[in-house]
């Protein structure tokens, strides 16, 4: 039978390529080559050029994304459906690029002032972003896998960026080992799925489930393992254990990057899989998602309550936020809910990205003065840096989901789609979510309290210097947070148009 394989392989037709659709990826790819080369030819004094190069690359990549968004032919499918550029992917691409840009802004000064080589940093960042951008369009196990590794491997290295810092090493190592392990498990699942469906195309996976008349154990096993792989990426409890350590050890901009972008990428993949590949298997993943989301937000919250290191607290907070994103997926199997579920995931990720990046921007800015990650070091921030304190308050309140700041619309849409299911499970989850959102204020509140109501710990009230890039980042995120909150129509609009082709066979 080997010859049959050969035979199958021989009928080769070169696929037609839609360069407009691929433009963002292409620009990024060239960009990162340029960055790599520039690093070789620029001397230390002009390294700053590289960072701006990176920034421009990302902005450049935005242009085709915009044109794609505006072009009327909404869905562009390539390589017989293995790589699709649809509204969903366009919205997500845009988000990744902007998030990436903000991360660049966060990094500039930070990396310059560090004693490590810059060039690679930008290169790695770009390639990781490229991986994410690819992830949004992947509709095939192979491309998903490749994109996943493409975004993960540079992230491993970025986490370990501060070479001589033990913590950073440890962060990188843990992240790496567990990441690889997770993807290995995921791959095993993929192999099983391939075996069951005899195709790597997501749509075919879905078809195969119906074709074989219901789920085989092979399917179930495969699905679970694959989901595990991405549950790891979104650091859902109990696959979260790497996140706190890595976040704490990694350089702050990277932590921001991981907690926002790579998490989002995980969700993108998860959503694509659930909606395109396994809609019929909702029996398998709905309960799984339910448990995951409950565990994730609860554990994330309650453990966050007892943190003293702000970055670590933000790590747990971002874990529990992930739980909220997962909420609607627990009922997304029902056809009448699926649309709103997808929407709420997208909306939540948009809002969360803006808010969390903003919070990390503040953290970076403040740590430039306090040189410490302890929450207690934030004491009396309001008295000597009212601007930063106010911004921090805005972001925290948004994370806590207090209107009229972005966060509430995310939570709101999540609740909405849960309740629209009308199922007992949905209501139960909504209630748990409601309680959790209150608990969450417990630790967001402690930071606020520290800033507003506590004295300055060491009486040192030198004003915090905020470099221009950081200020810009703060501006962008703050504006986004407020706009999403006050005119939620904007966010929900993106959520609404972000439809995945082939989701639920539609």
């Amino acid at each position: 039978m080997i010859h049959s394989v050969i035979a199958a392989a021989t009928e080769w037709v070169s696929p037609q390529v839609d360069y407009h659709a691929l433009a963002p990826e292409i620009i990024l790819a060239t960009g990162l080559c340029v960055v790599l080369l520039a690093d070789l030819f620029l001397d230390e004094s002009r390294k700053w050029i590289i960072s701006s190069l990176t920034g421009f690359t990302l902005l450049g990549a935005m242009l085709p994304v915009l044109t794609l968004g505006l072009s009327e032919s909404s869905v562009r499918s390539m390589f017989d459906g293995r790589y699709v550029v649809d509204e969903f992917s366009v919205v997500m691409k845009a988000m990744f690029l902007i998030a990436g840009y903000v991360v660049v802004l966060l990094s500039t000064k930070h990396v310059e002032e560090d004693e490590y080589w810059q060039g690679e940093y930008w290169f790695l960042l770009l390639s990781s972003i490229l991986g994410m951008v690819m992830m949004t369009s992947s509709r095939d196990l192979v491309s998903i896998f490749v994109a996943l590794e493409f975004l993960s491997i540079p992230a491993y290295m970025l986490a370990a960026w501060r070479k001589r810092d033990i913590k950073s090493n440890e962060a990188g190592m843990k992240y790496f080992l567990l990441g690889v392990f997770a993807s290995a498990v995921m791959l095993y699942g993929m192999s099983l799925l391939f075996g069951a469906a005899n195709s790597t195309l997501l749509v075919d996976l879905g078809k195969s489930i119906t074709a074989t008349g219901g789920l085989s154990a092979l399917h179930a096993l495969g699905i679970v393992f694959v989901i595990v792989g991405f549950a790891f990426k979104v650091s859902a409890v109990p696959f979260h254990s790497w996140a706190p350590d890595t976040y704490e050890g990694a350089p702050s901009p990277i932590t921001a990057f991981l907690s926002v972008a790579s998490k989002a990428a995980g969700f993108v993949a998860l959503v694509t899989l659930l909606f395109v590949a396994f809609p019929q298997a909702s029996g398998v993943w709905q309960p799984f998602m339910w448990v995951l989301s409950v565990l994730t937000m609860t554990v994330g919250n309650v453990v966050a309550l007892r943190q003293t290191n702000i970055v670590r607290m933000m790590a747990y907070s971002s874990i529990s936020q992930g739980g909220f994103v997962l909420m609607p997926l627990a009922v997304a199997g029902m056809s009448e809910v699926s649309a709103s579920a997808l929407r709420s995931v997208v909306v939540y990720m948009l809002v969360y990205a803006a808010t969390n990046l903003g919070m990390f921007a503040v953290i970076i800015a403040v740590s430039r003065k306090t040189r410490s990650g302890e929450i207690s070091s934030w004491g009396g921030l309001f008295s000597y840096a009212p601007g930063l304190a106010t911004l921090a308050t805005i972001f925290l309140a948004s994370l806590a989901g207090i209107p009229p700041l972005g966060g509430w619309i995310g939570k709101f849409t999540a609740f909405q789609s849960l309740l629209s299911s009308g199922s007992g499970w949905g209501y139960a989850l909504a209630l748990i979510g409601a309680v959790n959102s209150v608990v969450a204020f417990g630790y967001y509140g402690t930071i606020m309290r520290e800033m507003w109501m506590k004295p300055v710990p060491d009486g040192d009230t030198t004003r915090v210097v905020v470099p221009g890039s950081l200020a810009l980042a703060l501006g962008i995120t703050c504006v986004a947070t407020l706009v999403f909150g006050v005119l939620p129509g904007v966010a929900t609009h993106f959520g609404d148009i972000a439809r995945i082709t082939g989701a639920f066979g539609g």
Partner: protein
Amino acid sequence: MLVNQFLFLAALLFCIGVYGVIARKNAVLVLMSIELILNAVNLNFVAFALRNGNADGHTFALYIIAIAAAEVGVGLGLVLLIFRNRRTISLDDLSEMKG
């Protein structure tokens, strides 16, 4: 049909790999165990491809091999880094941060 044996072998490899990852404390060994898993995966793919006469499996396997190489590269790099900084590659010592 001799596909199943391959699958069983793969499953066995997978389990050994998992056990290795969990039980070994030497970073390099853990890395190797992960490679084991990946190979189990490859085996699966090839076997399924063979059974279903579908070349995608082979392709996938090739991708995996390639990327696994990259991973190992990064991994060893990290191990080296850690060894430089603390003269050991035992994972137990990697517990600066916890809680």
